[in-house]
């Protein structure tokens, strides 16, 4: 049987990040405020994490509010019509509904309806996973513009008495518009997962245990030492592979933007990579805290807003976290 030749998407050669948008929680939470329940102090928290304050959202500011604010900024800066958005990818672990997705509601709120919209669950690696997918969708010709959002309201899932991770966490959303480009703007992504450490970071219990009364409200937990070792020494290897895949050397970078997990991880990772002093290392964690999927775009946005880095420079971005999942790529700064 004969049939007409199928049409397929017409690929475009390159993609790039057009713009970023950012929203942080409306409350500035000091170390003193979180130190009491964990029998700690401002000094202890600063020394061990580098955090001075973290931004958290008040009860009236939802994850969706922050995502909408960050998305609208990115759309405006990109100078595109939201109706041109061909996919909305929302990375989050704190959307309070198992279904429907946060992305579908966000698409409606920002005027991108009827864009395809879906959430991804890759925790602190989620934004870099989203950029990888957006890059593929744009270059394949499947979407003209893609909105990638990393957004979290982690303060809904913390235990003030937990000494492993809760006191690090903040709330926020970072957004990026990715679209076609005449020149290369996003390198190959080095990404993956290691489920042998599935228990190293995550929730304290499942929803079924909560339903059955065998657990209380699930909150975030981590095995700090296991995560630290993986985040520094394994992620240093991933970062080196990402640079190699991009065809660039450390000295070619304007910035390194890691997931803002803990200053000790960021500093040790920079040391392992032997970054020259000319490379600006993002340290948004100091005043924002660890915002999981939002941390990479928030940190990059902050560097651009402060003028520490300039549009057109190269940045290595790397996300890593629960799964354990990781993703890294070199991007041209928007």
């Amino acid at each position, binding site marked *: 049987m004969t049939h007409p030749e199928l049409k397929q998407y017409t690929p475009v050669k390159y993609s790039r990040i057009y713009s970023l948008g950012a929203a942080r929680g409306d409350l500035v939470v000091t170390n003193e405020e979180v130190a009491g329940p964990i029998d700690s102090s401002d000094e202890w928290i600063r*020394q*061990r994490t580098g955090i001075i304050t973290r931004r958290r959202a008040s009860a009236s500011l939802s994850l969706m509010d922050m995502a909408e604010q960050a998305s609208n900024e990115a759309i405006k800066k990109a100078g595109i019509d939201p109706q041109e958005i061909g996919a909305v990818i929302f990375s989050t672990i704190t959307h309070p509904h198992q279904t429907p997705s946060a992305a579908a509601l966000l698409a409606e709120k920002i005027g991108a309806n009827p864009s395809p919209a879906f959430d991804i669950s890759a925790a602190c690696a989620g934004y870099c996973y989203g950029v990888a997918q957006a890059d593929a969708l744009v270059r394949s010709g499947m979407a003209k513009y893609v909105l990638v959002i990393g957004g979290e309201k982690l303060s809904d899932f913390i235990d003030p008495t937990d000494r492993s991770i809760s006191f690090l966490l903040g709330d926020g959303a970072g957004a990026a518009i990715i679209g076609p480009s005449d020149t290369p703007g996003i390198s190959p992504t080095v990404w993956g997962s290691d489920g042998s450490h599935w228990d190293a970071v995550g929730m304290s219990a499942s929803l079924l245990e909560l339903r059955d009364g065998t657990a209380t409200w699930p909150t975030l937990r981590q*095995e*700090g*030492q*296991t995560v*630290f*070792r993986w985040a*520094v*020494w394994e992620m240093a290897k991933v970062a080196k592979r990402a640079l190699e895949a991009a065809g660039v050397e450390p000295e070619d970078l304007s910035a390194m933007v890691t997931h803002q997990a*803990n200053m*000790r991880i960021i500093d*040790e990772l920079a040391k392992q990579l032997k970054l020259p002093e000319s490379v600006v290392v993002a340290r948004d964690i100091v005043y924002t805290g660890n915002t999981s999927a939002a941390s990479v775009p928030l940190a990059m946005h902050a560097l651009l807003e402060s003028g520490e880095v300039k549009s057109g420079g190269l940045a290595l971005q790397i996300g890593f976290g629960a799964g354990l999942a990781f993703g890294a790529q070199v991007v041209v700064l928007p």
Partner: protein
Amino acid sequence: MAFSQSEVLAGLAEIVNEETGIAAESVQLEKSFTDDLDIDSISMMTIVVNAEDKFGVKIPDEEVKNLITVGDAVSFISSAQA
């Protein structure tokens, strides 16, 4: 080449000094990493990874919590390289 116990202690003391600034001579077998030397869990992990490199041994995550004193670490490393 296997390191003797005194070489492991000296090497470990050097690593501890580099990570924390604690004088190498304070790193003695009976000293507790946390209580006596005031080394936190993150610094401890950096010391462990550097010790793995230096002595060519594997120190699994689940073993780290058993290394209470400097002597525990020296014993573990010494037997792991044997």
